């Protein structure tokens, strides 16, 4: 319920469909408590009723689902979610309802469901695990679920840079940001909460004699006035990475009604020269019997609800603790007019600090109330006392939030006085810690430490710190604690509330010899829930230390890993959905191809036309066959701009090419083009293509579309790493030139209409190249052919590509030909036995391709030495051959294997594999290219052609790879 004099609750929201009202800006947890809702969730494994336990992002219990439908957002912490008008929140992991949850039967049979239960019980029969046990267990245990529909929610990612990253905006963080900002450093202050101030917002402390919120307001105003300080609220730094890189998650739209134009979250990568961790500390619970009932809340959470949000979490609040914060909580409750049922301090000498009943040296040994706390039993050495209460505030001490200091292998150090782990200095290069996360718990100490750290960092970075920072007068109360981890008694004593792990599970792990903390963690799943054991790790460790008779430092800690809070994959991968997944590269003829209704297919990042359908054609095969016939009989036009084009220039260009290609280019005449083969240094084929010599010191290399990037990188590698002495430059010009193949018996005739150059067979022979004018535009012409026909490739600057493609296509159509796409291009090259990366799959050698003669022995080149290794040539190699189907009604398939006719079609009997297939309209049959053991000696053999995947089992004949015009007469016509 709300305390008197709190702002009016004007915001409408629902929880499980029940309408409620909230105060603007408050969290869902606060609003639920204000509306008297204590039972908000069912636990992960035993489906126990659970309530709100904290007021921060470490909340283990109060996970809810926001919204319904495709954009559902599960596992949202009610303690982080701010209420907005129209918010619909739902409880999770309960059916049919939160109050009557059928799966709560798990809790009744819990003695059988302890740690390791699944491992021991669901062993046999083995096949049952996947089909029966796991699905059933998964349905029974769990948190919120996704909609399994496409999620339209917008996420964003961003990059930030600064001199000093201040992580956390509590008293230490504010002081650090102020000091660094005043020194002139570029500061990013990242703060998880919606409001700056940290724990001070939840306390009634004074700074400089005035309420702490006055100091917060003044400091925030000073920071906002500095242009060099960027304040990022609702931003959690989730990970520390190498060289000062930090990940952060900004909740951009979570606190507002959903809008299409506002991302829900933004994932930041922040690069900081230095960082100051001011992440504060997390209060820890105490493990006592049935310590998980709704209404049992951490003392710091109770103070947050009372002091910050004006909400009383109960009408009669008992407080149980082992340190002075128990008393601080009681005093605050009294000040707010809330009845304090009792304060139970486990320390014997404790003194009351206000007008409340104190039970010193007592412990809570039992609790009552299934859906909400109704009372506790307190045991002292002499008696058991029953106390009626509907809320129990617990404080087991504080754990510094040192998680980020462990993200790069750092290990924390145990501090006996604080009974807590504290960070090890320099665990993350460039990151220092200040305030509560460093074990400095009083406000005055936080402010002093942070100011000093920030001033030191600013000086290190070269900024002038003009005067010593002024530290305002603040609370100096010492932190006094006597460790209390465990209270004995009947009932389960919960440690990890989010994964339902209790003390007995840890003891069982130790009993079964999982005594290493890492083993205990995995055996019990303690600390493996989304909260990563923020409220349970240290307590579980203490219990393990106790049952194994070791000290806590001897027992060690588990490893804290990023992310500090759960991060949606959608946020990390923001922008990479759908068309954002990969860049799209379009050729200059893209619009013209779409205009002809060509289906576009992906070729690497490029999009290329598959075929150009005409009216009356109902299958791609019909279009493809027609386009093949254009090229074989008339003329076809195809955009080949996607092939890599690399300009190679310099006095040593020829020497360079001789080194990267197996064959010789220094002997290539000016105005001529040569086919080249490129190996990797291990002797296998990397890529192939033609290279034209346009000048004495000027070549243009083409690569395959698939390997263009790889070859470019390789050329730079050779130039810079292997042969830095050569005077040669390489540059990719793929995007600069639009290039079209014009292929077919009438290609010369067509091109004569667009260039004034003499392209007769005598003046421009096969493999000739050079500059030409293309309707007045300076272009290039190469007489090369990937189809085996008389053919040219004509290139113009990319800005003319669209109009030239339209012109060439129109003219080809006027002659009875037309544009052709990838399907026809593929058929044409298979008929001629020309290779692509379907053949050059990384395992193939020049010998395999029948190109051994192209590897010059007169010079060194990349891959030459290793290509000569035993095993890379000879009859044991799979050599490239052609295959053609013997029966006419069977389709061949790439990926099939070849077997002797009598052999069983199993892997060990495979004689070869098929890389490319097509129906050849020219030869009227199914043909393909294959790699067959000792293949060149087996031309004419009949083999079994088996594709188990597609159910094909037929016969084929082995033939030479060049199946059409084997003498190559057409290309020279």
């Amino acid at each position, binding site marked *: 319920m709300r305390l008197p004099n709190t702002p009016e609750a004007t915001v409408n929201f629902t929880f499980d469909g029940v309408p409620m009202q909230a105060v603007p800006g408050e969290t869902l947890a606060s609003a639920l408590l204000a509306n008297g809702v204590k039972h908000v969730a069912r636990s992960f494994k035993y489906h126990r009723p659970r309530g709100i336990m904290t007021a921060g992002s470490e909340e283990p219990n109060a996970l809810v689902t926001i919204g319904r439908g495709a954009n559902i957002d599960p596992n949202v912490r009610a303690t982080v979610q701010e209420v907005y008008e129209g918010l619909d929140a739902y409880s999770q992991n309960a059916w049919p309802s939160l109050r009557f949850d059928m799966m709560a039967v798990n809790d009744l049979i819990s003695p059988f469901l302890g740690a390791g239960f699944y491992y021991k019980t669901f062993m046999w029969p083995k096949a049952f695990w996947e089909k029966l046990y796991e699905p059933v267990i998964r349905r029974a245990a769990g948190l919120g679920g996704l909609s399994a529909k496409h999620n339209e929610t917008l996420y964003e990612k961003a990059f930030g840079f600064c001199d000093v990253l201040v992580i956390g905006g509590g008293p230490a963080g504010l002081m650090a940001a102020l000091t660094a900002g005043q020194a002139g450093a570029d500061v990013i202050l990242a703060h998880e909460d919606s409001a700056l101030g940290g724990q001070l917002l939840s306390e009634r402390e004074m700074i400089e004699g005035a309420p702490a919120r006055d100091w917060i307001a003044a400091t925030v105003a000073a920071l906002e006035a500095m242009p060099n300080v960027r304040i990022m609220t609702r931003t959690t730094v989730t990970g520390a990475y*190498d*060289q000062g890189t930090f990940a952060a998650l900004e909740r951009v739209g979570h606190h507002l009604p959903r809008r299409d134009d506002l991302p829900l979250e933004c994932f930041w990568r922040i690069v900081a020269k230095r960082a100051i961790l001011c992440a504060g500390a997390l209060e820890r619970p105490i493990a006592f019997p049935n310590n998980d009932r709704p209404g049992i809340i951490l003392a710091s959470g109770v103070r947050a609800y009372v002091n910050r949000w004006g909400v009383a979490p109960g009408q009669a609040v008992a407080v149980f603790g082992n340190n002075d914060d128990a008393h601080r909580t009681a005093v605050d409750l009294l000040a707010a007019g809330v009845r304090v049922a009792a304060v139970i301090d486990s320390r014997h000498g404790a003194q009351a600090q206000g007008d409340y009943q104190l039970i010193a040296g007592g412990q809570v040994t039992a609790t009552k109330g299934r859906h909400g706390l109704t009372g506790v039993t307190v045991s002292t050495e002499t008696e058991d006392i029953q106390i009626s209460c509907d809320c129990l505030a617990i404080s087991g001490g504080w754990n510094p939030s040192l998680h980020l200091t462990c993200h790069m292998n750092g290990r924390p150090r145990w501090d006996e006085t604080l009974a807590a782990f504290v960070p090890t200095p320099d665990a993350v290069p460039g990151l220092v810690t200040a305030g509560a996360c460093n074990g400095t718990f009083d406000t005055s100490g936080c402010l002093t430490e942070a100011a000093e750290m920030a001033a030191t960092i600013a000086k290190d970075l070269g900024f002038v710190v003009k005067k010593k920072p002024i530290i305002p007068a603040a609370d100096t109360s010492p932190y006094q604690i006597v460790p209390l981890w465990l209270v004995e008694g009947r009932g389960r004593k919960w440690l990890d509330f989010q994964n339902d792990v209790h003390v007995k599970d840890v003891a069982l792990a130790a009993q079964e010899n999982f005594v290493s903390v890492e083993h205990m963690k995995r055996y019990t799943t303690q600390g493996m829930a989304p909260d990563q054991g923020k409220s349970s790790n240290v307590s579980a460790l203490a219990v393990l230390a106790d049952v194994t008779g070791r000290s806590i430092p001897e027992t060690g800690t588990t490893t804290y890993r990023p992310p500090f809070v759960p991060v949606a994959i959608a946020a990390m991968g923001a922008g990479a959905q759908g068309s954002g997944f990969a860049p799209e590269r379009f050729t200059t003829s893209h619009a013209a191809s779409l205009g002809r209704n060509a289906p576009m297919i992906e070729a690497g990042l490029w999009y290329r036309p598959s075929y150009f359908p005409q009216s009356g054609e109902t299958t791609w095969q019909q279009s493809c066959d027609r386009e093949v016939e254009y090229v074989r009989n008339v003329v076809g036009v195809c955009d080949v701009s996607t092939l890599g084009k690399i300009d190679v220039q310099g006095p040593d260009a020829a020497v360079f090419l001789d080194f990267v290609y197996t064959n010789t280019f220094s002997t290539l005449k000016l105005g001529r083009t040569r086919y080249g083969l490129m190996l990797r240094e291990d002797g296998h084929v990397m890529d192939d293509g033609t290279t034209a010599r346009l000048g004495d010191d000027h070549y243009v290399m083409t690569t395959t579309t698939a390997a263009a990037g790889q070859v470019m990188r390789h050329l*730079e*590698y050779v130039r*810079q790493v292997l042969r*830095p002495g050569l005077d040669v430059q390489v540059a990719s010009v793929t995007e600069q030139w639009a290039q079209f193949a014009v292929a077919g018996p009438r290609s010369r005739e067509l091109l004569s209409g667009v260039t004034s150059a003499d392209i007769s067979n005598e003046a421009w022979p096969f493999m000739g190249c050079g500059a030409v004018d293309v309707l007045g535009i300076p272009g290039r012409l190469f007489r090369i052919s990937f189809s085996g026909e008389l053919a040219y490739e004509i290139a113009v600057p990319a800005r003319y590509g669209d109009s030239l493609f339209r012109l060439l296509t129109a003219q080809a159509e006027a002659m009875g030909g037309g544009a052709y796409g990838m399907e026809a291009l593929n058929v044409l090259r298979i008929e001629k036995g020309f290779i692509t990366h379907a053949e050059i799959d990384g395992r193939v050698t020049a010998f395999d391709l029948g190109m051994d003669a192209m590897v010059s022995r007169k010079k060194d080149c990349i891959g*030459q030495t290793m290509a000569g*290794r035993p095993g890379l040539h000879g009859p044991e190699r799979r050599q490239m051959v052609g295959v053609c189907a013997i029966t006419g009604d069977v389709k061949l398939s790439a990926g099939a294997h070849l077997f002797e006719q009598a052999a069983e079609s199993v892997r060990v009997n495979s004689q070869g594999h098929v890389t490319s297939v097509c129906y050849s309209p020219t030869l009227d049959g199914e043909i393909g290219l294959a790699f067959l053991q000792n293949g060149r000696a087996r031309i004419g053999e009949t083999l079994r052609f088996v594709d188990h995947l597609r159910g094909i089992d037929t016969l084929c004949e082995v033939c030479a790879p060049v199946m059409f015009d084997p003498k190559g007469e057409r290309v020279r016509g």
Partner: protein
Amino acid sequence: MRITCPLCGERDRREFYYVGDAVALRRPSPDAGEAAWDDYIHNRDNPAGDTQDLWQHEAGCGAWVVVDRNTVTHAVNNVTLAAKVTR
């Protein structure tokens, strides 16, 4: 991870392409023999500590660089242009 390109300055590692051990700088002569070529192509140490490897600033200036770094601490100690490395 951040790498300081000698030409462009400090950049995110996403701008770089990683190839592996800087042994690649010492290419044997064609007649160096099988053992030398085997080492060059296939054999790599996997040190816990200082290592030298080759990266390309592919999404930047295209420079191939030799990165001296420590596989235990992740410190990047030195970055030099591969073309300037004496060999």
